[in-house]
């Protein structure tokens, strides 16, 4: 009698198995991806970067007609404001000229004093202005995608400023695009201090529009209206950048209002203070 060979699973049986359990396999894959993304897998990072590189140009193209209509509307709106804006700007210009003269004197004085102390100044910050091409924000995450073009100097971790204050940091760079993690996102934790009295705390995003100030001293003297600035601790953000204003002090939490109107943001500045690389290098050295 001839024996049947049953050493390997037949391809047709394998296909049948896959077809039968495909949905279960995909569910398990989704959960596995979540677990892997918690572990910051390099392969997953590359996958998301590739997808971002493919689809961001599409978003940029499909938004062009809408951007055109919005641009025309903004221009018409601006025409009505030209006269009053001009008057205001002229007044501001006079004030700024006075400040400029004062600054020039202070700069000279500072240079002389620095020379006397043999002080080495830190490198000056450089920045890239980028246009926002996509935004997303709901209860699950808050981020933006900006077009950076051929700007090579944009790197992960760099500070992102809006018109008046910090809005977040660069999370990933994918070709000509960068994803910006807003400071209202749940993953964002910024060490800050109250400008008035140097009380320290951590500004934590929670996927709402009002991030919370946490880890403050129990007897901390904080009142609504206090300005929060970056403390510089942890090395990601340099010290002294405005972040938000305390808006409400509840029983368990301190709510903070953003200074920059994030929904109306069209352009951002990605600033390289030249400290992030040094911090990463130091951390790597410490790990080794």
């Amino acid at each position: 009698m001839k024996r049947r060979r049953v050493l390997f699973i037949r391809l047709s049986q394998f296909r049948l198995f896959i077809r039968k359990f495909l949905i279960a396999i995909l569910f398990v894959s989704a959960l596995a991806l979540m677990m892997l993304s918690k572990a910051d897998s390099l392969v997953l990072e590359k996958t998301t970067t590739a997808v971002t590189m493919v689809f961001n140009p599409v978003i940029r193209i499909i938004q062009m007609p809408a951007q055109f209509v919005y641009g025309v509307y903004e221009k018409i709106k601006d025409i009505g404001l030209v006269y009053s804006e001009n008057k205001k700007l002229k007044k501001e210009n006079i004030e700024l000229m006075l400040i400029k003269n004062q600054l020039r004197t202070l700069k000279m004085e500072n240079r002389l004093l620095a020379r006397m102390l043999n002080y080495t100044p830190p490198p000056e910050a450089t920045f890239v202005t980028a246009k926002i091409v996509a935004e997303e924000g709901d209860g699950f995450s808050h981020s933006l995608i900006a077009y950076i073009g051929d700007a090579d100097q944009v790197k992960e971790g760099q500070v992102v400023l809006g018109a008046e204050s910090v809005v977040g940091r660069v999370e990933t760079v994918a070709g000509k695009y960068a994803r910006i993690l807003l400071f209202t996102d749940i993953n964002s934790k910024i060490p800050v201090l109250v400008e008035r009295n140097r009380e320290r705390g951590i500004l934590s995003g929670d996927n709402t529009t009002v991030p919370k100030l946490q880890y403050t001293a129990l007897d901390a003297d904080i009142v609504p209206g206090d300005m929060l600035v970056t403390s510089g601790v942890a090395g990601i953000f340099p010290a002294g950048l405005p972040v938000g204003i305390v808006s409400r002090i509840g029983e368990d939490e301190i709510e903070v209002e953003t200074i920059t109107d994030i929904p109306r943001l069209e352009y951002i500045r990605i600033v390289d203070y030249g400290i992030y690389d040094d911090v990463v290098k130091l951390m790597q050295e410490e790990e080794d």
Partner: protein
Amino acid sequence: MEETFSEILENGLKRCLPLLSSILLLLVIYIPVHLPLSRFLRPDVGMICVYFWALYRQDLFGSVSVFILGLIADSLSAVPLGLNIFAFMFVYVFGSTFSSYVNMKPFAVSWLGFALISFLAFAVKWLLASFFYSQFLVFGSILIAYLATVCLYPLIASLNILIQNKCLANEEIIYEQG
């Protein structure tokens, strides 16, 4: 009869049309609108598309298409990779189960079904994300996104019905226009 190259191409494109149109609609929602409420009222268009095609054209929109759509949604946003895939798969499984019941019923029935299934999907998404971040996410803003998604369902469904009836109508017509 043998198919010509153009026929093969046309049929291939038709088979991909539900996925391609869903990707396009998904991308449209990422366009910055510069409105104060835009950060709250961001509907989950992907979920609507998955539900719609699971109800009416499972033959053209399989579980792999759902996975791809979820992967794109996850990659473009800052959520943990896999979160949208899981939620979309959840909607797909329930949508396809619900499919035979909804067939030939008024549009309101499928809308009601979506309101129910998407609520469960948002709740699952919330639980998974809370587990991932080891803290409960604020449910209020998620509820607003859910309501925006349910309200947008008729519009996105109408676009999908148009695609189905204009481009894929050889097989069946979902709703007669007008």
